[in-house]
């Protein structure tokens, strides 16, 4: 991990255009030494997983504020698993009602950061997940 910088893909699936949070996270991860690939708005699950594969990322971060997080996250997890990228954790931030957090973790999301999560907490968790993936790598 020390020798190689963590590679993180940040994307916004669905139609939601609120990208303030996604960009803040992208800046913060870059400042923390990560390689950040920002895929931008209205990315489909297929586009996200294709970029994750070609960029060989350690973590996928998505941001959703439109309320469509359960559907879009399950779709993304299915697409990831179909491409045998199970070892690439998916984290999610945005407007997420507390009742949905357990559901999302149950679906296989590695971490959920609802509105109000402290920025350094998010950065550290993403870096930790990236390190775990690197250690697990065959």
């Amino acid at each position, binding site marked *: 991990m020390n020798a190689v910088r963590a590679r993180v893909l940040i994307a916004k699936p*669905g*139609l*939601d*255009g*609120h*990208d*303030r949070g996604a*960009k*803040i996270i*992208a*800046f*913060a991860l870059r400042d923390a030494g990560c390689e950040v690939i*920002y895929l*931008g*708005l209205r990315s489909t699950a297929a586009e996200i997983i294709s970029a994750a594969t070609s960029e060989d990322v350690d973590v996928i971060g998505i941001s959703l504020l*439109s*309320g*469509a997080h359960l*559907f*879009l996250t399950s*779709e993304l997890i299915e697409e990831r698993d179909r491409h045998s990228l199970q070892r690439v954790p998916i984290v999610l931030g945005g*407007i*997420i*009602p*507390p*009742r949905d957090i357990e559901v999302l973790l149950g679906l296989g999301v590695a971490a959920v950061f*609802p*509105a*109000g999560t*402290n*920025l*350094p907490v998010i950065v550290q968790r993403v870096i930790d997940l990236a390190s775990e993936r690197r250690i697990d790598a065959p």
Partner: protein
Amino acid sequence: MTVEASRTTDSGIEVERIYKARDNPTDLEARLGDPGQPPFTRGPYPNMYRERLWTMRQYAGYGSASDTNARFRYLLGQGQTALSVAFDLPTQLGFDSTTTEALPEVGRVGVAIDTADDMTELFRDLPLDQLSVNFTINATAPIILAFYIIAAERQGVDPAQLSGTLQNDILKEFVARKTYIYPPEPSMRLVGDIVEYCTTELPRFNPISITGYHAREAGCNAIQELALTMSSAIAYSTLLTERGLRFDDFAPRLSFHFATTLELFEEVAKLRASRRIWANIARDRFGASNPDSMRLRFFSGCSGSTLTAQQPLNNVVRSTVQCLGAVLGGAQSIHVMGYDEAMAIPSTDAVTLALRTQQIVAHETGVADTVDPFAGSFFVEALTDEVEQRALELVKVIDDSGGAVAAIEAGIPQRWIAENAFRIETAMADGSKVKVGVNAYVSEGDEDELELFEVDEGGRDSQVARLRQHLERRGDSASAALVALAAGSRSDENIMPLLLDAARAGATLGEMSDIFQRAWGTYKEPALW
């Protein structure tokens, strides 16, 4: 904290320990004028709230047209004085409810509207000749306007009687709100078509609401917000005058939209400065001869980004201060946020309390009794001048880059926003900006869970079924009108009559938007870095 430590406003203006008469310009009287007279610093109307309170307009919409119709009736029953429609993302982005892209989002952040029939249902038993309606719609604004005109006609209401506002500000979509579809140039043509059409056909309706609110919510500061709003207004006015419209014919119907955050004095200063700047721009750049063309009227949506998921009831207090700021700044209409909006779209309780907040500020505090109560305050006048001057410097930066469209294509305002948003977040993380309940006075242990609003998935299913039935019933009877629309999109003629024909023939929002996309393509925003 020591007394000597310097203090600055959110946008970086240094605040002195004390302000005195000498801090104000000698020509203060001229800079202020009387309320209702240019340069309108003290307010757009002579009697302001003594004659008429601001319009209480809560933004609302979810599920199907009938679901939202029920919410509208509830709000009107609680004393709301006008309507404001929230559309779902598929409607904003030109997808019919039956498409793959739409399905996860149908009815979630607003109401799903696919056809003129849906719009008719949205306003069932709500008399459109008596109700002012605001539409937060941009890329698909001309289609929504066509649906609305048809809904009015079906009620027997002459479109000339319609009052309300179409947001129709596409530039800020590219900058911040991000529900753009087509590239800037054809998008601007649609804005022009709408304003031109409304100037003759809907003379009581505001065909555009030029907005700094979303750039502010996305992260820029008050001065940048004001400058971006003015640069957009300049770009639209230039477009319209180049199309041959007289400025004095359309300018009186231009309306504006600002945020009001918790930085109370700076916000009041910004709102007062906005009126003075616009009056001067209208006169000096566009040769306004009618005072109505120089009169800036605005809506304020307070500020959702200042609200917190932690200790959510604190948001009631934050919203109250913001509502007060909008009133002291002279707003014509106001939306107050629900206290639970950092977690979900607002519950009925949260919406009701937001409306009650406005009613309490209006009727129990006396703030509406005199016009522009901050006038002559050494501090507020000094701040008003400073905000005005700094905003004009940024307007010049945009002018020098070739105007609002060129600046957006170069990513200039997008960078202002992203950098300032990151600065704010970093200041919260290191504690230099205090946020109660988040980085200070944090609650120990579990907080009470709120009853959050849940969108009923049934609304989506019924909307999908409704659209399928509509298409079956309609068959191919809209084909000729859609062919004419396609031809019109490739010519210079005003698109509104063609959209009205297609919508009357039963064309869907998605069909009409697809025609535009085929003619003009789809915008893709520049990379972040």
